[in-house]
């Protein structure tokens, strides 16, 4: 059984890896095949996959995960400034900071559940945001963000004589395509880890907490350490994602910690399908795609696209479409949220499953197949 499962998992992973690695090719026709956006897909994918471990598997809805992302970003930039421009120590440091911060917040917040838990995490995140903007200025540089400077100490780089002004993996620039593949590797590792976690007894315990915590505790099972560990793991994912943001683009700003950023990851996860492995990543890709591509259409661009139509019709179509793109990209996003939740409660993954089921049923209606149908168990 385990062998079979692992084999299926590995196949799943291999297909996923192939799709990710080929992204520059198949995203090009959608206008998204450039490094910066693909890096963002990877980074927010990691963030959402980590969030799913807490929300999707364990059932705790945190409204403060952006705080761990922000803390990870600051940690990574400080590692660049003080230690080295190499991303590896920066990411490790970011994960540690994200994890420790999550442990502290988790100890307090997990004493409550339901919406009371959500508001506690929200309160901690908003506090971090406000403080990062004002009194923590020496650490965060407030609204203009923490940046690299040529005068930074960079102890390790000086020691080994490494030079460069931007983050690089032993001379490999983390801007551009190398940055994307670096992020893609991390995403695959994170995806694999969450897959294994899902199949492990630990993952089983988390799902049990989600389905009925009271019953779990009646059986003498102490749920708190499990929930706490899940919280810390997802905090580390968030810290890692924050670190990756700093690796590909060495700037950390306080706005990453605001509640809207925490809300975004919730939306990503639900949109894609909470509790599924792939869903959160798909949600992250869709939201980032909208934010970056839909917002870029202007009326002039629309006129160009619909230029093949006759004049009157072209104007009409542009008039209809323009409120939904460019300045109005939020509107499209809002409508999409509503449609998906109304018609596909399980998110996009549920939609995929339904389509698959439909296809399967249609093929099973074939007379030769029908005879093979067995009664339901």
């Amino acid at each position: 059984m385990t062998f079979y499962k692992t084999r299926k998992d590995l196949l799943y992973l291999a297909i996923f890896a192939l799709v990710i690695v080929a992204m520059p090719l198949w995203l090009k026709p959608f206008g998204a095949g450039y490094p910066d956006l693909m890096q963002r897909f990877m980074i927010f994918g990691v963030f959402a996959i980590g969030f799913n471990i807490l929300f999707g598997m364990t059932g705790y809805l945190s409204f403060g995960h952006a705080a761990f992302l922000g803390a990870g970003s600051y940690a990574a930039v400080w590692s660049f400034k003080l230690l080295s421009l190499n991303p590896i120590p920066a990411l490790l440091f970011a994960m540690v900071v994200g994890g420790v911060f999550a442990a502290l917040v988790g100890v307090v917040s997990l004493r409550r559940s339901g919406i009371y838990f959500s508001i506690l995490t929200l309160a901690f995140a908003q506090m971090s945001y406000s403080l990062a903007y004002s009194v923590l200025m020496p650490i965060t540089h407030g609204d203009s963000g923490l940046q690299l400077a040529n005068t930074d100490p960079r102890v390790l780089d000086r020691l080994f004589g490494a030079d460069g002004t931007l983050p690089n993996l032993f001379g490999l620039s983390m801007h551009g395509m190398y940055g994307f593949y670096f992020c893609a590797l991390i995403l695959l590792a994170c995806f694999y880890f969450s897959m294994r976690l899902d199949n492990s007894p630990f993952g089983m315990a988390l799902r049990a907490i989600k389905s009925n915590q009271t019953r779990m505790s009646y059986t003498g099972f102490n749920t708190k350490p499990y929930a706490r560990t899940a919280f810390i793991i997802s905090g580390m994912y968030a810290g890692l994602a924050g670190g990756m943001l700093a690796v590909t683009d060495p700037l950390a700003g306080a706005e990453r910690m605001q509640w809207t950023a925490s809300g975004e990851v919730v939306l990503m996860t639900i949109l894609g399908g909470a509790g599924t492995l792939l869903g959160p990543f798909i949600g992250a890709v869709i939201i980032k795609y909208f934010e970056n591509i839909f917002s870029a259409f202007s009326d002039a661009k629309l006129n160009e696209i619909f230029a093949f139509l006759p004049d009157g019709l072209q104007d009409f179509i542009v008039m209809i479409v323009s409120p939904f793109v460019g300045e109005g990209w939020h509107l499209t996003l809002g409508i999409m949220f509503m449609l998906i939740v109304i018609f596909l409660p399980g998110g996009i993954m549920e939609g995929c499953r339904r389509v698959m089921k439909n296809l399967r049923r249609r093929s099973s209606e074939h007379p030769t197949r029908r005879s093979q149908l067995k009664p339901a168990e």
Partner: protein
Amino acid sequence: MDWLILQFLNGLDKGGAYALIALGLTLVFGTLGVVNFAHGALFMIGAFCAVVFSRLVRLETVTVDPERLSPWGTPLEVRTPVVELWLGDFGTFLVQYSVPLAILLAIPVMLLIGWAMERGLIRHFYKRTHAEQILVTFGLAIVLQEIVKASFGANAIPVYAPPAVSSSLNLSASLGIGTDIFYPWWRLIYLGSALLIIGLVIAFLQFTTYGMVIRAGMEDRQTVGFLGINIQKRFTVVFGIAAVVAGVAGVLYSPIVSPNYHLGMDFLVLSFVVVVVGGMGSIPGAVLAGFLLGIVESFASMAAVTRVLPAIDQVILYVVAIIVLLTLPRGLMGRKGVMEG
């Protein structure tokens, strides 16, 4: 002494605003079990009712005067307000009192929007998870505010209190204090209206049969249903009331904060903190928490306090929320088992 009274007034005023927004939210939650992230958007729409009304009464005719030129060389457009022209003194009254009169516009508009929201959307989400309710109402909030943005722009639009009450009142004589204590008329009116509305809603639930049924439905929906009462219909009414309260709060708040399309989002997080501190679904809890947080925030913002604890004014609401939730598991007046799953 004067600072104490002034900050206390500020706290009450803020508290009134918080309580009024939180009231509808907790009402909807307590009766329908729905977490409504679009509640802030209802507040915002209320504020825009004031904008729309003041534009209606300032209706202008545009004529082109070819003799005079605009700064960019095209014939100048001359605008003449028509309402004052047609209606004389009554027109002037309409223009000056546009904000309080906008309530008359806001009530039917908000009832309609509330009814449509409940019938068209919220109803189908009673049995869904809170996460799904949040996502769908958040989507709705975005759609509503983008529609407002597309029609009114992103910039805030100033709305004015009636001239008779746009100045401030010297309270020193009535309080018997030597130093001057000035407080804006409109804020005092706002506080009074907030208390009145809160009182009306509580009285409606407490002293009418209709309200009693709703309260019974909050306690045990199934049993009330078994008694042959159409609880569904009453819940639509509850949603309408919540929408009207949010809308009227928005109208009254518009002279203090110029309405802009994301006003609702600015208040959303805060109103949730108030509701949760008060205890989800508890109306007296929301009112108490609103006033408590308002007063605490006002006193924490004083220069004497922030000198000792820098930036405490920015985080005090959250500090109070954390302390309350850690000492009282269900907020100030929350019921057991609600929203803990």
